[in-house]
């Protein structure tokens, strides 16, 4: 399938052809397989012509058109509406380029992928010479998980590795923020929607930042909504583009396990950061370790795998936080042993509740501790890599309503033994 496509379209797409691909990709009910079959063995302009004529016999588009003749009408109408001029202007406005497999920027691993995207919509610069590692995880992490993600992001970026992630809330965002804190960061964000509306909205600034230091990549053209089914599909591209996928925190049925599965299917190294037994935020990653994922606790572990020099990776400037006073130091020491509540801390240190609350509040205000839902966690120097939006997302008001519908988690079939071994069977997206 792959070979056929690449050999048929030998020459690179012209700029008009790139616009034609964008016109086709934005059609109703367009899927990876359908777009791939439309472009198989013909130039994009010819493919548009075929659609306009309604003369597509190829599976699976032909099957769709035979089953539902209305689609052909709708597509014709949409192509008229999605005129070359309009789409061209839209792409130019958003500074989005359409990449095909023949382009030098096309990530080489996608050339041999079993399920490659027919085209990529890219904003920013996609460097094929740089090595790429994905850092993914839950959208609902602990403060400790955010720190680790940021640490990995920063360490990888400092060693010259591009950090690939999904730009989701939580771990994904923290990894990118950490990478951005490095001197010469190179980032790749693979998103599930079009470039016209950054999603999640809370990461709009981060989105822009990533385009400046790398690329935001999508399989779909501007105008595509962040629909639930697109997220697991997006995950395969994250996995395919990377040399290794590091899962930082994931629940038992977390969406990042899908990325891990995609990686395992492609022979991409899966690495997992373990958590305490019983910690629900780490249930998925612990399972990954059980299933044979490489256990990593530090950036060095990853750099060693990549056979990169890791001396001096991730060195940070001096910590600007005021040093805690004597008693606060004791409390901070206790916090470092694990998350705790005022109640528990007071009991453990034999403090008055008020005094315990006072020390914790002061540590929190000065940035040494972080509180969510009554639990305090100590923050090491890496906390600084997470800027306000990254961690504050836990409780800030919802900006849009469709997040609830996007639950790639539910698609993991955890009943099938090994998470990594469970291949096929649950490809609910097709």
């Amino acid at each position, binding site marked *: 399938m792959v070979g056929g496509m690449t050999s048929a379209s030998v020459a690179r797409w012209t700029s008009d052809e790139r616009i034609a691909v964008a016109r086709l990709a934005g059609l109703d009910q367009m899927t990876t397989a359908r777009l791939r079959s439309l472009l198989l063995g013909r130039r994009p302009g010819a493919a548009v012509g075929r659609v306009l004529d309604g003369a597509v016999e190829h599976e699976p588009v032909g099957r769709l058109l035979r089953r539902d003749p209305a689609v052909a009408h709708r597509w014709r109408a949409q192509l008229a509406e999605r005129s070359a001029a309009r789409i061209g202007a839209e792409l130019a406005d958003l500074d989005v380029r359409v990449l095909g497999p023949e382009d030098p920027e096309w990530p080489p691993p996608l050339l041999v992928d079993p399920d490659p995207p027919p085209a990529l919509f890219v904003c920013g610069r996609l460097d094929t010479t740089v090595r790429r590692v994905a850092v993914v995880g839950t959208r609902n992490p602990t403060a400790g998980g955010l720190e680790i993600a940021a640490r990995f992001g920063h360490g990888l970026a400092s060693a010259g590795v591009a950090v690939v992630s999904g730009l989701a809330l939580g771990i994904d965002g923290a990894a990118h923020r950490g990478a951005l804190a490095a001197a010469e960061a190179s980032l790749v964000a693979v998103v599930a929607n079009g470039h016209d509306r950054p999603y999640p909205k809370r990461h709009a600034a981060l989105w822009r930042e990533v385009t400046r230091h790398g690329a935001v990549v999508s399989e779909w053209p501007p105008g595509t909504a962040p629909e639930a089914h697109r997220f697991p599909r997006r995950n395969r591209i994250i996995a395919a583009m990377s040399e290794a996928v590091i899962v930082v925190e994931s629940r038992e049925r977390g969406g990042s396990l899908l990325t891990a599965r995609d990686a395992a299917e492609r022979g991409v190294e899966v690495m997992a950061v373990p958590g305490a037994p019983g910690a629900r935020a780490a249930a998925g990653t612990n399972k990954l370790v059980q299933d044979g994922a490489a256990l990593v606790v530090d950036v060095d572990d990853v750099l060693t795998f990549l056979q990169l020099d890791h001396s001096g990776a991730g060195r940070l400037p001096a910590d600007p936080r005021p040093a805690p006073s004597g008693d606060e130091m004791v409390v901070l020491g206790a916090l470092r042993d694990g998350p705790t509540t005022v*109640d528990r801390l007071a009991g453990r240190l034999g403090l008055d509740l008020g005094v315990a609350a*006072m020390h914790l509040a002061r540590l929190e205000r000065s*940035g040494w501790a972080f509180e969510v*839902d009554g639990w305090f966690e100590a923050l090491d120097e890496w906390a600084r890599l997470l800027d*306000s939006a990254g961690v504050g997302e836990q409780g800030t008001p919802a900006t849009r309503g469709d997040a609830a519908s996007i639950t790639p988690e539910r698609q993991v079939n955890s009943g099938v033994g090994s998470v990594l071994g469970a291949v096929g069977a649950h490809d609910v997206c097709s």
Partner: protein
Amino acid sequence: MYARIRSGVLFGARGHGVDVEVHVANGLPAFQIVGLPDTTVRESRDRVRAAIQSTGRKFPDVRVTVNLAPSEPRKSGSGLDVAIAVGVLVADGHIPPEAIAGLGFVGELGLDGSIRPVAGVAPIVGVLDDVDVVVPVGSEREAVVAASGRVRTVSHLVELIDTLGFDAPWPDHPPEHDAATLPSEPDLADVRGQRMPRLALELAAAGGHHLLFVGPPGSGKTMLASRLPGLLPSLERDAALDATMVHSAAGVALPPGGLVVRPPFRCPHHTSSQASIVGGGTHTLRPGEISIASGGVLFLDELPEFAPTVLDTLRQPLEAGVVHVARAAASTTLPARFQLVAAMNPCPCGSRGESPGACSCGADRAQRYVARVSGPLLDRFDLRVNVEPPEVEHIMSAEPGESTAVVAERVATARDLASFRQGCLNAFLPAPLLDDVAPLTTDARRDLRAELELGRLSGRGYHRVRRLARTVADVAGHDGAIGASHVSTALELRRALRPAQSVGRWLAA
């Protein structure tokens, strides 16, 4: 041929005196009730006729007209049955008119002539202040609390005819068997561990602060909340009388002794209708849960599950201490000085707060769940407390927590201190008084300033924290300036549901 009998009807939580006039005259046999009776009153015709017949007397087969004076307000309820029956018997000559002088009657009739209790005897008897009252045996407790004259009890229409018509002595019904003591309130000693939530309860009791518990299912929120009334001092005479009136009017069983002495604890289910919570219904305007809880605690478990419209109707009574219920035909004012205690899960899956990262809901979903409780209502809670599941060693520990008796004593001392100092509970401290009554130490001022500068505390929140910190200090027996640990405790006890703060904020400086 004519008789006039004193009785009364219930309206909201108040009684209204009604004169039942009965006229028996020649004409086609008929039995009419006029004077704006509602259906329940009109139905009493059949009960009265059957009851009189079952005593062996003949119901007059002429024209019987009953007028309920004053005729303007609509009358409701079956409490007029006995008065109507007595009126018919007097007008028909079975009872001499002079026998009913100086008497008022309240009660419902059974078809066999038995006399049954009705709701609202206390407020009705309260307005019949110029007569001795005759009430059903089961209502004696309520009547005694409110009556200014003597209270006679009857169990059957025959007894009444014997007493009034044949000068028999009033029947002597033994008072209902009272348990020697009040039913025991749950004890705080049952709560193991949970020092913060326990402190919150103590502060709520001592300062009159509204309290919200946020925590995963099974963390003991309901158990904690049900122990608040035990910490509150008993009601003073006036408040107890008011509470008794409302309880009686709402048909809620009164405690032994009749007077509602202990602060009520009401926990309506989250499917409760607006009328059942704030009061109302049609023209009877029955007191709602907020009125029944007046003087005590209204506990709303699963707060976000209540209809938002129901919750928002609580805001005005919370401020005013009364609720004015109006319908097209009538309106009334009911007491609503309740302390609001609520409990909720932190998110739909409920596990948020069990441990960091335990929740699988996602921030947006949890946020939408919490947002079902409106900001203005949340703002009324001075205490917003995270409740974590108790630690295993605490659950297994044989050592009981501090008992209600011990804590209640500290609460009483703190309340006395507050009322001696400023004449009100700390929750109601006017803001201008705060600098006099709740001065801050330099340390405490610095901590509060830091919170304000971080934008985590609004101006209003600042005052609330100071009031709460005053209570924290009072409970600790500290009457002087408020220290940093008191302020920190107050801040900590308002922390639940606050949006998580950024760790990077201080970087901007």
